[in-house]
Structures are given as C-alpha cells and as structure tokens.
C-alpha cells in the first residue's frame, strides 16, 4: 500500500490561515488501511482544527467527507456539486489523490494534510516498512524475492558494500542490510549462482528518471 504520515498540526494551521470554510477530504484506499487518511482521521483532524481555530478566536467551517478513492475520477466527481461553496480542500489522501483532486477542481486550492511515504507493508500493528520503489523493471526473481533497489541504502546490484556489519546497514543499526537478507535467502533457496553473476547496468529510464510514467492498456480502453 501507499503509506504516509500526518503533517504537524501547526503546519496545517499555517496553510489554512487564509481560509474560514474548507473541506477535509479523506480516502478509503491505502491511507485508510495505514490509518492516516481515512474517515476516522478526517473526523479527528476536523475536530482538532475546529478547536484550534476556536481557541485562536477565529472559527472555521469544515465539511468532512471521505471518497472511495481519490485516485479515480468517478469518485472525485462526487464532490462536484459543492466544492465551489468552499474556499479550499484539505486532502489527507496520498500525493496522487491530492493532485488528482487539484486537476479536477481547478479553481479550488488543494492543500496536503499528510506527507506521502512509500510503497510498503504493515510489519506489525503501527509499523510500516518500505518494500518497493516502483522502478519499473523487477529483478526479484534473481535476488531471492528481496529488492536491492529498495532494501539496500545504496541500491547496489552487487552488494553488500564494506559497511555491512552483523546484518545491519552502515546507515544505522536499526536498518537491516538488504544484501545480507538477499544472501541469506539465496542460500536458503540454493540459488547463490545468481549472486556471482555480473548484472547489467540498471535502466533507470523505467523508473522516475525517465520522467512521469504512464501505463496504457489498449485492451481496456
């Protein structure tokens, strides 16, 4: 899922300074699962903002809504009827959702209420960890199902570097060395042959470096 963290309330209040009537918009997708941008978080954020503005002697009117997904046009359209009645929309969906709202409602300012994180997994309740950078050219079959691009702090294709110590990365003792994980797994799978092969230079053109990416499925159009 796409993860995220709430922006500090002070930052949000500063963004809202020019406005007295806003929509707080959540999303039932990824951000609901990682509990940063769903219906419940919309309620909590709206209440916090009301209280803060009341304490500051300047009330704010807030409409609370949550869309099925902010990354799909059909759900975004559901706001069409009332968006113009508000001065701004504070979205706590991921960056994709926030941008899509901004694209569809061109005359209303869109404000981000969360910092979008990464493509990750729930390692345990309340803890998420990155697993994929969406580089567009998956090599997991060669690396024991563990991604060198994401799990190695240097995205090395022939790791580990000299900074791998007792299973942790040189960037911190709480960061597992991605290449130690890969080697452990390749050994368990009896696939160490994969380790000693020289890998071709990665084509980053399928990653973000090639510019904004697009997937077109002719069979679905």
């Amino acid at each position: 899922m796409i993860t995220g963290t709430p922006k500090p309330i002070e930052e949000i209040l500063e963004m809202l300074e020019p406005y007295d009537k806003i929509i707080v918009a959540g999303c039932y997708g990824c951000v609901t699962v990682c509990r940063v941008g769903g219906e419940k978080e919309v309620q909590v954020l709206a209440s916090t903002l009301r209280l803060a503005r009341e304490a500051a002697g300047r009330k704010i009117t807030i409409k609370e809504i949550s869309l099925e997904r902010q990354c799909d046009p059909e759900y975004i359209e559901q706001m069409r009827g009332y968006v113009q009645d508000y001065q701004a929309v504070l979205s706590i969906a991921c960056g994709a959702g926030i941008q899509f709202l901004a694209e569809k409602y061109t005359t209303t300012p869109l404000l981000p209420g969360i910092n979008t994180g990464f493509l990750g997994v729930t390692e345990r309740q309340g803890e998420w960890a990155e697993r994929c950078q969406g580089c567009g050219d998956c090599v997991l079959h060669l690396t024991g199902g563990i991604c060198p691009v994401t799990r190695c702090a240097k995205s090395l294709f022939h790791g580990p570097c000299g900074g791998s110590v007792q299973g942790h990365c040189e960037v911190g003792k709480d960061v597992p060395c991605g290449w130690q994980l890969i080697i452990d797994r390749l050994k368990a799978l009896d696939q160490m042959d994969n380790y000693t092969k020289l890998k071709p230079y990665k084509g980053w053109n399928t990653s973000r470096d090639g510019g904004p990416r697009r997937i077109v499925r002719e069979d679905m159009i």
Partner: protein
Amino acid sequence: MKSGSNLEKVLAAGHFAVTAECGPPRGADPEVVRRKAAYVKGNIDACNVTDNQTSVVRMSSIAGCMILKEMGIEPLLQMVVRDRNRIALQSDLLGASALGVRNLLCLSGDHQKFGDDPQAKNVFDIDSMQLIHLTRTMRDDGVFPSGQKLDGAPKFFIGCAVNPFADPFEIRVPRLKMKINAGADFVQTQCIYNMEKFKVYLEDAMRQGLHEKVKILAGVTPLKSAGMAKFMKKMVAGMDIPDAVIKRIADEPKEKQAAKGIEMCIELIQELKEMEGIAGVHVMAIEWEEKLNEIIGGAGLLPRPVVE
C-alpha cells in the same frame, strides 16, 4: 601494459609495491595538498587521492591528482559512484585520462548520511562493480558502454577495494572474484588489524588462484593512540580491530603510544611482505603523512624502485 602507470610497471616487474593516500582539503587551498604530498614523495609508487571520503565535501579528487602530478608524484584517482551518474563518471574518466592520470580505484562511497550534507540526494546509478566493468570496456574495447565508439580510449590501471572483515564473511572472496571478472587489475584492502581473519580470507582467495589474476595490496593504517583504535573500532563500519591489538598500544604510556603504533605498523608490513599472494602494501596514514617515510623506510621498502 594496460595503462603504463608506474604502479603497474612496479608490480609487473615483481617488486613489492607501496601506495599511500592523500585526503584533499576542505577548501580550495592547493598548499594543503602540496604539504601532504611532500611527505609522500619518494616513498611510494602511487598515491591515492580520496573522493569526498566519509561524504564530507573536499577538493575534487581529479584536482588533487593533478597537484600531485605537477610535483612528480604518480596519482591514483579514487572515484565513488555515490555522487555521479554514468554520464558524469564516463566524462570524468575521459578527463582524468586526458590529464595523464593512469591509476583508478573504483568505490561505492560511504552513505551521504555520514557527511555534512545528509540531506543530499545520492546517485548510485551504477555500483562499484559496474564502474570497474565500465572502465574496462572503455579501455579495452574502445567503446562507451552504450556501444558508441570512443575518440581515444582512456588508459587506467583499474583497482578496487575489498573489505575482508565486513559481513557476511563467506561472500567476501566470491565478491573479489566478481571484481576480477569485471576487470580489476589490482585491489587495495581495508585496514588489516585482524591478521588471523585476513589469512583465512587470503588462503581462500589463493586456493582459487585469485592472487595470480589480481595484484593484492594489503591495507594498513598506523594507530596514533589507543583512543584512535577504540574510536575506529566503534565508529567505522566494517573496521575489525582485535582487543589484543588495542591492548598492546593501550599498555603504553600516552606519550609513547604513537611510537608504538608506528612500530606495530612496521611489523605488520614486514609480515605482509613475506606472505605469498601479497603484491604490495597500501599505507593509509590518515592525517599523519609525515610518518610515511619512517614507516615505509622502517619496513625496509626504501628506496622505491625505478622501472622504465
């Protein structure tokens, strides 16, 4: 000769080679390089110039190499893949070769988190293994990795670094083999203090005949004090300093620890010199270049051979 560098010639002639390193300054003053280089001159066959080591911004390695060259010292260009993509790496390789730099050390580079700019974006477009391969492709095939023909191939004696003490230990020799297959001509090791572990590594490498395919230069760093030893052991990732080594220097009174550190370093070099499979020594006297003559001379490695 692949590059015609002095280091390559010295090794090819069967001499026990000596390299050292000069860290460029945190500023634009060339005198700092010249001061350090004066201590290096005459004591070595080539001198490494580090590339923004520990991710701290310093004068560029190529510039440092050129200052050394002006002084008649053979430079060895260190190049990390942390800060430059393949376009910049290739360009700098061509530039360095055009300026007469003939030795290269291909490195990953410490993570930027350790430097003064932890917020910097890192590059790692290719890794150090691929930089070795890229350089060899340009040198031997006369083409860019893209396949485009070069207007003059760069000439480098290609080196790599290995850390026999990092984890996991069992892939350290296979990794050296990969670097040789990628195109490494010589290797400089991480500082050796744990001789026992190093011997296990070397024996394994020799069983596979790797010492015949690559020139192994053993890395040593003289300890200035017990405090420095403890600091390095604790703070430098992949640095293996056994307690017995620390004890030996810590047992000396403070004012005699530096001399002890030099004595220990000389002993180590002498031991390495006698070991089969070791082609030379890389003396990293970090911010202690003034002791290089004493160390290298003390180990019986002066004067340096002149090979035509």
